[in-house]
């Protein structure tokens, strides 16, 4: 009877020990898995940082390049206006001179026509039906007609000059309007701000992943170092975990804005 009781007690003690052993082993294993999970979390954060920021950086660079090209073109156009202005002034001076010359010619012809008409009037009043006076009248009439034609030509020339100036003025103002409409609004500042926020967010997630990993490592190492877990860990070859250390390769991300 006593022997059986003793056996039962021994069996219960063995069962308890085995159960305790299994429980402690499982606890160590769970913590080890958490450490591995933490390490994977760092990789996820690094991958996310690399992929997200690479894509965003490309997008920002393209946008900045595009804005640089547009800005440069605008600057070139603006700098090209000066020679245009100079030639415009020269053209204006020439046009004015030509208009003055045309005016002079018109006045000349008008004066000449007036004097011919006066002379014709004088000879008509003074009389004379001789052939020479009739011939002289006819010559003066021809001369008058020619002067009229020349004066009309000069007038037409002046009108065409004025029409040309008017046309040039219209095209210049249209060009200024077109230039004002084409001036771009630059949005690269907001893109950069968004990029900076993305960098900050990625770094914060990475830091959180590192801290979580280190916390899991610390919990595992502390338990592993304490008795009787140290025995179980030694029996099953559970080595202490290493805290996070920076590796060089893909884990550094240099933001380069140069080509």
């Amino acid at each position, binding site marked *: 009877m006593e022997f059986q009781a003793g056996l039962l007690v021994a069996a219960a003690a063995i069962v308890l020990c085995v159960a305790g052993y299994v429980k402690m082993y499982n606890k160590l294993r769970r913590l080890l898995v958490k450490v591995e999970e933490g390490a994977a979390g760092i990789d996820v954060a690094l991958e996310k940082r690399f992929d997200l920021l690479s894509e965003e950086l490309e997008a920002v660079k393209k946008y900045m390049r595009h804005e640089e090209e547009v800005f440069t073109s605008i600057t070139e156009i603006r700098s090209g206006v000066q020679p245009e202005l100079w030639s415009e002034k020269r053209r204006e001076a020439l046009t004015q001179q030509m208009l003055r010359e045309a005016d002079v010619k018109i006045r000349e012809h008008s004066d000449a026509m007036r004097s011919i008409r006066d002379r014709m009037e004088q000879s008509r009043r003074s009389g004379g039906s001789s052939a020479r006076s009739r011939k002289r009248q006819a010559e003066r009439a021809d001369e008058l007609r020619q002067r009229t034609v020349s004066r009309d030509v000069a007038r037409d020339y002046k009108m065409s000059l004025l029409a040309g100036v008017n046309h040039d003025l219209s095209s210049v103002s249209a060009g200024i309007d077109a230039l004002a409409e084409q001036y771009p609004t630059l949005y690269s500042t907001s893109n950069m701000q968004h990029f900076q926020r993305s960098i*900050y*967010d990625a770094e*914060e*997630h990475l*830091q*959180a992943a590192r*801290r*979580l990993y280190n*916390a899991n490592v*610390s919990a595992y190492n502390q338990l592993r170092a304490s008795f009787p877990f140290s025995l179980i860990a030694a029996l099953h070859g559970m080595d202490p975990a290493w805290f996070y250390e920076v590796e060089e390769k893909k884990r550094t991300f240099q933001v380069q804005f140069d080509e």
Partner: protein
Amino acid sequence: MVGQPEMSVAKLEKMRRSVRRRRWFCMLLALAGLIGAMRIFYPYCVAETEDMPAPEILAYVLDFIVAGVLACMLLGLAWMLIADRADKKFCHAYKCQYVMQTIEALPGFRELLYSPYNGFSHDEIRNAAVVNCGDRNHFASEDLLTGRCEDVRFRFSDVITKREVRKARGRREVNEIFNGQVIELERFDDRKVSSGHVQVFQKEFLSDLRGWTAEHPIKTEDETFNRKFQVYAADAHNAYYILTPLMMEKIEAFSNAVGAQVAVTFRGKSVFVAIAGRRSMFDPSDNIPVDQQQGRILEDISLLQKAREIIASAAAV
């Protein structure tokens, strides 16, 4: 409330004194009623207790009980007829005008709206998971103050949660779970959003106060913080993302500044702060002069200012 005429301190003080006088009058009336009733009913009590052991003592006790009941009824009646209306008028003027005037005079506050009889809803407190929301039937929230503090939108209110429990022999009892203030700040950081709940409870916050908690208890790397607070989150990574060393310092600093038990929950862009065990906000007292009660209003508001300055300091102005 917006649009109320300004209430001078002198006028409010006059109302307070009137309430106090009426209260004292009611009490004196009740006392006179007690003495009178004792004299009137004493002979009847003596007659009733003639055949009992220690009849004189019993007669006094019986006389006192009967006169006491009558005096209480008289007190209640007198209060309703004489003092109640003045008391309500004083409370209304104090809450609706004086409290708002005091808060509006403080720097950093704008778009203020104060509603003495509104507060958080049961669903809002339940979804916030900052305190145990208790039974819907026994939920109460009042003294709701909304507006902007340093350009962060907030809601600030008294909250009382209770639960009905069954006792032996089918009896039911309503137990109070939480009695304090809850603050909701629209944002705690311009650049962070919490995906899920991150709950931080001060360890003195009893388990019954906490209510629903997220799946995982979290241990941070700060042992001092771990000794004082318990963190719950559905996602450990999110908890570490939100609870940076700086944020943990801020929560500790806030807890020390407030000097009461606190719970903080981050959800989305918002943060909820619960402060337990404090008196009801903005309640007037007819025993204390009005100008001294301004200090109580400022003390109540200081909780909100501290929450904004400390916990939501990363939210830009």
